[in-house]
């Protein structure tokens, strides 16, 4: 079971055990990680699961598809390493992935 680390904007960290095949968003929400909402249940419809992929991991996650990129442009404080975490699926090679969270999703 891969581990994903979520780092809040104030530095607080939480490491969660994620299930293979679930989205990073769902791993966060299931473990009550504050700062990720995922209001639309992962259907890429709300941009409230926004996270920043840590620099060290940026080249190791698959790139976003066009629709995610479009929705992402509407999130708060978007940066080059921004992703909608409902579109990132947990695979064995993402064990140890670090996601930083924005100060707010709304």
């Amino acid at each position, binding site marked *: 079971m891969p581990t994903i680390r979520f780092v809040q904007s104030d530095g607080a960290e939480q490491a969660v055990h994620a299930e293979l095949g679930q989205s990073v968003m769902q791993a966060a929400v299931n473990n009550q990680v504050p700062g990720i909402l995922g209001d639309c*249940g992962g259907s890429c419809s*709300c941009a409230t699961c926004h996270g920043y992929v840590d620099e060290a991991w940026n080249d190791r996650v698959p790139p976003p598809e066009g629709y995610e990129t479009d929705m992402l442009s509407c999130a708060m404080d978007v940066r080059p390493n921004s992703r909608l975490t409902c579109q990132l699926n947990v695979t064995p090679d993402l064990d140890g992935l670090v996601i930083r969270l924005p100060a707010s999703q709304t």
Partner: protein
Amino acid sequence: MSMDTNGKAVIVGAGHAAGVMAVSLREAGWQGSIVMIGEEAHLPYQRPPLSKAFLAGEAEVEQLYLKPAATYERAGVEFIGATRVERIDRAARLVHLADGRALAWDKLVLATGGRVRRLAGANAEAAARMPNFHYLRTIDDVMRIRAQFHHGVRLVIVGGGYVGLEVAAIARHRGLQVTVLEAAERVLARVTAPEVSCFYERIHRAEGVDVRTGTQVEQFELDPSGDAVAAVVCQDGARIPADLVIVGVGLVPNTELAQAAGLEVDNGIVVDACTRTSDPDIVAIGDCSNHPNDIYGRRLRLESVPNAMEQARTAAAALCGVLKPYNAVPWFWSDQYDLKLKMTGLSQGYDQLVLRGDTGGRSFSAFYLKQGRMLAADTVSRPQEFMLSKRFIAEAIELDPARLADESVPLKDLLPTAP
């Protein structure tokens, strides 16, 4: 409302609103017990995938749950499933369950949702008992449908709303023969402009769906052995052979418990902007609630996931003594084929429709204006225009229809510039 967070909170219902409420209430600081009672056996789950990925067999039951059982255990939430609440006793502060138990409460949350509207007339009730006739609202409904959802099966869908059209799209993808019967003159008549209805009729017909609007069911023909629907007979005389019938003609809010308990009910359980009912210790949230909305200056009952979630969060705060009035622009989504329809706002009363993009293609936005301001928007595969529309509506921004329609003008240029 007294602010003792050490009491017993009981949530009637275990749907989306209830699931968010249970955990949010604990996170908001509730220290007493939290019990969530659901009529279905399942933990709270998302319904949108029932007519999409779950019907298509691309998602399994566990993936629908809002949270796994462990999350509720950690939050100290007790879940009682497969149990109906039969009666609310406000004087004694009890709920009476179908299994004979009575549970005490200090604060009560009504998250009873709704049930499918059943077809009236003819032999609809007899047909509904047939194994190949289904309404679609629950995981169990779709499990039964999935067992019959095969290539070549002749499917008749009664109802050209979101559920009917989503099922049609999945069915075509799986190689079923599909007929959609819609009683109104066009599909999605309740919620969109004729131009948008027309677009969806064109798309579905191009995918091979036989869309028949202005068509009502006269009766269901049963097969000679009397144990299955064999055909659907329409009022215009058409007889459509059917192996499978799925009906999606709307939702009726479950307000009976509230009504019997003497709470105010009017197109839903009546609440204020903080989800409080006419009883100071009872809140109501989600599909069953009728709540005020300042943006539209009227009361609404919304059947949407964002509404369920936001009301749950407001109610959790309210029970812990914090007032967070809920007043948001409604929004909704529907996925059919590769098209991502996202809607925001409510279009009733619009005086001008502005189209941006071409309804002859596969991506456009339809903006509903009233006196130059946006009431609502239907966006097809245009997520940025959907997100911007929420702002146009919420902030009552005055719009120039010509610029709104002009795709060479970036939509965000129509936002007011900072002073």
